[in-house]
């Protein structure tokens, strides 16, 4: 049994997130990374405050602190005043500011949920784990943490790992872009994957960016407006191709993302069938996100070709979301067990 955290009753969390506060207010209250070390020192300098970690992401701003004040409410009020003063909020904005004020076990539970991705906009996302780690490291390096917060954050990381290891909360894809990446990974080695965009719509750009961020090798952009193709290709360090030439590159690419506004099929079975032998039967993934569809559904009948239209992608993303929601209860159970194990639910320990 780990040693109980010191000063557990003096632990608090004050914050706001995407559920409580609209983005136009959140952006006003965000701490730029360079200012976080100064901010944690400022909080530590407040009377009664000993330790502090500031977590500031696009979806949340939270201050975790250990204090020696006699009442938690007093601590929350001090934190609120600090935020109002730090960000120089106008009285009407300060008045409208909605913060959540959590103490001891509630604060720990909240941090455990945040680290596990349960409080994220995309349930179960893993990026938040790294963001919390970075926030903690900034505070640690600034000398703003001591026994209480060091223990709390180490416990939070343990809980976050446990939740991910023992449930499937991060399994599956919840957006069309991530489904496209998952599919590409199950067809090819992404590092060797060459992508072609046929049409330069916003959704295809998002999918392509997801693939590139996960290591796709190269990108070709073909669009009716060649200038737009050149612009998008430059943005993604790819190659632009005239629209009447895209067929010539069919044998060179592994993933095609199609999103033209053509009212008829742009990619037909005979075009793909011909090229498969030339491709030496390398599998071809085609993502058709156009409505009306760009790719004749009969293309999926060709050996080695895997066609997914927007409805198929959306259905997979919906399944992913449902699966994550099903895992929620198991995740909450793990968090409660860990709160118990670390002594947060047993007042006599602290």
């Amino acid at each position, binding site marked *: 049994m780990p040693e109980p955290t010191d000063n557990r009753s003096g632990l608090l969390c004050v914050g706001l997130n995407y559920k409580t506060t609209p983005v136009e207010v959140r952006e006003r209250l965000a701490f730029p990374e360079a200012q976080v070390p100064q901010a944690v020192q400022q909080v530590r300098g407040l009377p009664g405050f000993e330790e502090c970690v500031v977590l500031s992401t696009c979806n949340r701003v939270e201050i975790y602190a250990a204090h020696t004040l006699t009442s938690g409410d007093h601590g929350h009020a001090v934190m609120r005043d600090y935020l109002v003063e730090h960000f120089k909020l106008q009285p009407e904005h300060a008045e409208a500011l909605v913060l959540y004020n959590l103490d001891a076990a509630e604060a720990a539970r909240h941090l455990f949920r945040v680290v596990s991705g349960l409080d994220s906009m995309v349930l179960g996302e893993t990026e938040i784990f790294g963001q919390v780690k970075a926030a903690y490291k900034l505070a640690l390096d600034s000398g703003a943490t001591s026994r209480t917060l060091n223990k709390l954050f180490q416990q939070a990381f343990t809980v976050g790992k446990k939740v991910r290891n023992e449930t*499937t909360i991060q*399994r599956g894809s919840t957006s069309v872009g991530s489904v496209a990446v*998952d599919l590409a990974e199950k067809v*090819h080695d992404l590092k060797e994957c060459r992508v072609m965009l046929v049409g330069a719509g916003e959704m295809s750009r998002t999918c392509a960016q997801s693939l590139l961020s996960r290591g796709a090798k190269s990108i070709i952009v073909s669009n009716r407006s060649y200038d737009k193709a050149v612009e998008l290709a430059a943005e993604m360090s790819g190659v632009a191709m005239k629209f009447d030439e895209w067929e010539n590159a069919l044998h060179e690419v592994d993933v095609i993302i199609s999103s033209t506004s053509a009212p008829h099929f742009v990619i037909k079975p005979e075009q793909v069938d011909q090229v498969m032998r030339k491709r030496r039967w390398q*599998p071809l993934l085609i993502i058709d996100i156009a409505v009306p569809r760009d790719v004749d559904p009969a293309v999926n009948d060709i*050996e*080695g070709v895997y066609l997914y239209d927007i409805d198929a992608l959306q259905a997979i993303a919906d399944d992913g979301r449902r699966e994550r929601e099903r895992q929620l209860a198991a995740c909450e159970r793990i968090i409660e067990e860990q709160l118990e194990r670390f002594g947060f639910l047993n007042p006599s320990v602290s």
Partner: protein
Amino acid sequence: MNPSQQLLACATFVFVGAIVQALLALKSGAWKQTRGQFLLMALGFALQTGFIYLRGQEVRQCPIRSLPDILVFIAWSVVLLYFLVGSAYRLSLLGLFTAPLVTIMQVMALMNGFASYPPKGPISALMELHIALALIAYAAFALACITGVMYLVQERMLKRHHIGDLFYQLPPIQGLSHAIQRLVRLGLLLLSIALGISFNLYLPMTKTGHVVFAWTVWGLYAVIAFLIWKHFTSPRRTAWLAVIGFILPFISLWIVTHA
């Protein structure tokens, strides 16, 4: 049941355990985090090795002269190749697909029983090498068959848009396709060496059937390898060939051992 057979029975139970454990891990979605599968396969392999050692002591020669012994030797080689190939190609779940085949082979061997061999004359190292290489080649073909099944499962899920737990755990189909090709080539190479050695052996007329069947198997896989090399066939058809093709060497074992 003598001590060697007890070891084999234990190995078989361990492989059954590996199947159950893998299925449970898949169902719970915690597959990636479990090392149990690897440990169970390693334990099964150690018990198989123990069996082959004790059996060798009993018959005072390499125990590859009767069908049950050959089945166990191939099962052992399949697990050995699983450790070599599975890690080399990062073929997660290969153990789940390997364990059932190994279990079936060992159950068949145990049901057949292990008779003692007739006394053996002077040991011919070339003969032992010929047989061992041929059996390891068969194991490579068995693993190509298993990988072929994995390919066909993954391919079907991709085509039908059935994206479930198994989908996320199976490797990319391109990786599976490459693994099949390499395993076919590896098996063919080993069998070629084994058959090459047979030219230097004096084989009695009763063994002619063995060599004919071995050459038939070699011919089949040579054709598959040629089709792969020339890209005459799609990966899906290659996977089917690897799966169905293994039936021939599997049947030939009966014929060879009962001739």
